């Protein structure tokens, strides 16, 4: 434990380089807090029933938003996320297409093959059948 404490003291000695960053953090938080407080105190307020309602693009809101939704929507959404992520891998590959050469091509081919297997799997399992 004493070993840890002495090292801790050393670490705090060298941390004074971070002092400007600390000042900046305090200033940033302080500035935002002050501005919000000032505008809340000085700004004009005229509260009416319509103004206090949730803004829904002018359409009157009905009931609670927490209603059960068919699980299919969730399934499609999660599959969309999965298959959308592949673009994240394709984009850097496209940029570095020439440099990566055949080895890179094979790697991407393998990636797409695994992807395709997943796609075949969800189709065969009927995950995309909207009507039961």
């Amino acid at each position, binding site marked *: *434990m004493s070993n840890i404490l002495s*090292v801790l003291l050393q*670490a705090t000695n060298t941390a004074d380089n971070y002092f400007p960053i600390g000042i900046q953090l305090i200033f940033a938080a302080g500035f935002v807090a002050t501005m919000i407080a000032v505008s809340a105190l000085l700004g004009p307020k005229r509260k009416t029933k319509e103004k206090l309602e949730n803004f829904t693009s002018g359409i009157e809101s009905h009931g609670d938003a927490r209603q059960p939704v068919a699980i299919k929507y969730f399934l499609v959404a999660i599959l969309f996320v999965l298959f959308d992520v592949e673009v994240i891998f394709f984009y850097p590959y496209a940029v570095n297409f020439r440099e990566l050469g055949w080895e890179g091509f094979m790697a991407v081919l393998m990636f797409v093959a*695994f992807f395709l297997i997943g796609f075949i*799997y969800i189709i065969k399992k009927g995950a995309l059948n909207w009507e039961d």
Partner: protein
Amino acid sequence: MPERAELGVMNAIIFSALIGVVMMLGGIVIKSNAGIKLLAIILLFILLGSHLAEYYDLFNIHIQTHGMLAKSRFGMFFNTIIISLTLLYVLLSGDEIVKVGTYGAEYFALIFFSLCGATILSSYNNLLMLFLGVEIMTIPLFVLTSSEKKNLKSNEAGLKYFLMGSFSTGILLMGIALYYGGTGLFAIEASKAANEAQQAFRILLPLGLLFIFISLSFKVSAAPFHFWTPDVYDGAPSVFTSFMATIVKTAGFIAFIKLFELRSVDMGYSWKILLPLIIILTLLAGNITAVFQQSVKRMLAYSSIAHAGFMLFALYNPNDFGKQGIMLYTVAYSLATIGTFAVLTKMKDYTYEGYNGLAKTKPVLAATNTIFILSLAGIPLTAGFFAKYYMLASALKESTSNLWLVIVAVLFAAVSVYYYFRVIQAMYFKDGNAETTEIKPFFKTLLIIIAALIIVIGLMPSLLLDLFYA
């Protein structure tokens, strides 16, 4: 087999992932439960074959891993053990696995993916691979835990496991980040130059190791991070509990040993306080709470916590004795637990009363179950005895000042005899009509083989340990 740190990836990692994919697609083509089970067994044989081919230098796939994975005799031997245990587990409980729900093939695929994570944990050389291994191993388990969709308890267990598991993963990542801050490396091997360069931030290294220790303690359910274990093990379908409590848990210990055999030095004096503290807490929480259980399944969950306490002894001397010990413990504990859970899944009633009079109705089940339970309790002539012996001896070999801890552990082992023997008492000395589901002769034969293995290893542990050096 020579040590080749820089070379290659293990066949087991690639093949376990591939057979998972094949299994998944197989589920589309094959509709019958028997066919799915057969495919799973064939694929596991392929996995075992490919692994053994590499073990004996016949065939392996070379991929440059830049030192992120390291092949070692220890890891390879451990892989042989867990793949064989999984094969045994599927042979024994395959029927129950496909019966859990409507996605038989997927359950097997998830088990194979989880196995892939376990094989990464036995060969990681870099904390990023540790993280990946832990995640690949546990994420399929969240699904398997909640696979009994109509059962509220199973769903609750799955959600609980998921939330607690992701929280502990956060701690693991924090620990890895601090470790990186302290050493400038993700590699688990100490590099002198890096250490000197980062002298100013050395406090981060023990702190990071502490975080990793906490997270891994969670994964192997060591107290005080064990609270998820009874609920999850109890809520999950019994067949999957069996997998979680054996193969997954022991893989967690391998990850533990690999990191802390190199790095426990860096934690300094605090390691000497932390390890005995965790061991005693784990033994206390596991054994004492198990005494008060009414359900055998829940008792086994607590007993798995108690066994985690014993396996933690391997960290005292992880260089030779502890490593042999953890191998022996893995085999002894896993065989016995897979056996008891296989019997448990056949029971209609999971309470102690449900076992009343089993000896009269199903003598073979009762007899083999007795051997499994004796092994779990660590009675001599069973594998469990030498497993515990090696664990305690490894602590004594490190330093005789650990004698008090060994005595405490032996006392707790004596406590464990009480709740284990209640099962034997129910089976043999209580009147009742224990009801089971249909039992096939093949199942009985396998139980007898497992019981025989336990006794053979209990008589001659050197048989197994010689294989380690062969």
